[in-house]
């Protein structure tokens, strides 16, 4: 399909970006956007394409972040093994809970995923012996075969490669028979089932994929920032991820990146105005949702590029 022009363009943009950015502070913001975008792309597969609400996604992000923090510092795992361990753990947990949880619909599903996320964040907060409790814990540097990214610029390339791969994989998935089955069970579950789509199985698979991506994103975050707190697994962080997906545009991979960008930049830009940043943030959420319920990218694509654009 017409996906390669987009992916090539995205790769060029990613490659050119660090030369266009004047200072380390901005590059740091961009890195954070990239990390968030990886998790949001996964979440968008669940919410946008498969149509299943998940309000506990930060729990999986937290698993990745704390796997990288705890397994390296307390058990001496190499960072890459810890990162993979986190992804495996998050995937396994998602797989275990997927069937009973994704059987639920609408608000019951929202409740269950929310509950799962909160339980994970409470466990992380309470198991201070491993996780350092509410105060958090430092994280060792990421190192792969002797190379250890340091500074915003080196990190930028690590994150950019991961982000591009996430976008590529997600795009492949959406445009495969499995992706069709997922979109179908969002559009009409009876239709999907009538042609043989085992909906429970597909929901479970995409949930696992999203959990694994969130865990990767959490691990990158932990190593990049060098410190984690239970905040990374909190309900508010889950909400931030959902908001990025929805404001950017559900069922849009480009929207995931745009949403991550907007909602990462905004709080930073407003951080000086204590209290007002929340007011502005809340008002913006309401405004975007009322005026563009499909989200920024799909709405704008429709307006400027005709109805067929699907980035």
């Amino acid at each position, binding site marked *: 399909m017409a996906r390669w022009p987009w992916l090539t363009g995205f790769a060029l943009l990613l490659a050119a970006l660090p030369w266009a950015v004047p200072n380390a502070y901005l590059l740091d913001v961009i890195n954070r956007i990239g990390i968030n975008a990886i998790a949001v792309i996964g979440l968008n597969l669940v*919410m946008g394409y498969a149509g299943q*609400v998940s*309000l506990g996604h930060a729990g999986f992000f937290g698993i990745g972040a704390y796997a990288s923090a705890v397994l390296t510092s307390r058990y001496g795992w190499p960072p890459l093994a810890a990162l993979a361990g986190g992804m495996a753990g998050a995937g396994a947990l998602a797989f275990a809970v997927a069937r*009973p*949880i994704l*059987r*639920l*619909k*609408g*608000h*019951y599903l*929202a*409740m*269950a995923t*929310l*509950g*799962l996320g*909160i*339980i994970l964040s*409470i*466990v992380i907060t*309470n198991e201070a012996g491993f996780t350092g409790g509410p105060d958090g814990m430092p994280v060792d540097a990421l190192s792969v075969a002797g190379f250890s990214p340091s500074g915003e610029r080196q990190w930028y390339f690590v994150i950019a490669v991961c982000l591009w791969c996430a976008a590529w994989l997600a795009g492949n998935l959406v445009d495969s028979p499995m992706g069709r089955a997922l979109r179908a069970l969002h559009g009409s579950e*009876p239709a999907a089932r009538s042609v043989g789509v085992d909906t429970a199985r597909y929901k479970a698979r995409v949930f696992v994929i999203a959990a694994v991506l969130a865990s990767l994103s959490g691990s990158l975050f932990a190593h990049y920032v060098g410190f984690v707190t239970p905040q990374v697994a909190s*309900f*508010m962080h889950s*909400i931030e991820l*959902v*908001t990025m997906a*929805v*404001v950017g545009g*559900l069922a849009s991979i480009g929207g995931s990146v745009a949403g991550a960008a907007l909602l990462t930049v905004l709080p930073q830009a407003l951080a000086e105005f*204590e*209290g*007002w*940043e*929340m*007011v*502005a*943030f*809340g*008002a*913006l*959420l*309401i405004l975007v*949702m*009322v005026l563009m*319920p499909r989200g920024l990218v799909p709405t704008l694509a429709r307006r400027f590029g005709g109805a067929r654009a699907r980035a």
Partner: protein
Amino acid sequence: MAEFLQFLFSGVTSGSIYALAALGFAIIFNASGVINFAQGEFIMLGGMVSVFLAAAGLALPFAVLGAVLVAVVAGLVLEKAAIEPARSAETVTLIIITIGASILIQGVAQIVFGKGQHALRPFSGEAPIVIGGASLLPQSLWVLGVSALMVAGLWLFFNRTLPGKAMLAVSANRLGAELVGIDIRRTWLTAFGLSGALGAVAGALAAPITMTSYDAGLMLGLKGFVAATLGGLGSGLGAVAGGLILGLLEAMTAGYVSSAYKDAVPFVAILLVLFFLPRGLFGSRAAERV
């Protein structure tokens, strides 16, 4: 025994607060199908505005009344400005809108009241009443009594008044209700106003027992949502039962198992319940139509 009684008292007290929070969820959900994530902020407003009006020299009853008014206005504005323009939107869009409202209200509260923690003066003294070796705060009696009154009042509202019956009709069959001339928009407005009032009363009642702050609404709101779901979304009695069950479970876990995991109890409970009963304890088991 005294120990058990002590946990029972604290469980029923917090359970009543959760029940009021859950009722707020249930009323709005019934009328509009919206889960209002800003419900917790109504509770927060009830506590915070009461504290500040009382500190400004207002007599307690007027301070609470003022807080209820503020929350009702917040509910009405939320419905008019954000819910009504988006009422045909998808579930997740409406969830984000109410979360946006929740963050906005928290922001305003932080600007007006600051970040500090506050406690409201108990309504009638602090000398505990000792029953069977366990002590009961007078404020707990206020919580229980007023909650019971609110539930009774709601029952009367839904069964004996026209607006209440209209609201039930809308929840049973929106199109049918519209066809017999019920004004859906007004019903929605009433639901949000009513939930605002319920939340504010719960917040004012709880403020002397638990401290309150600009961000106190989040956890209370979430637990209210749990209680409402536990009882089966939209069921009034289910919401009350769900709230009480949650309060008791929490108090007993905190007392006998681990107080660190007290906050996890509602969420573990709701996951277990939903695993086995996908529509809550008292939810309807209607067949799906194709």
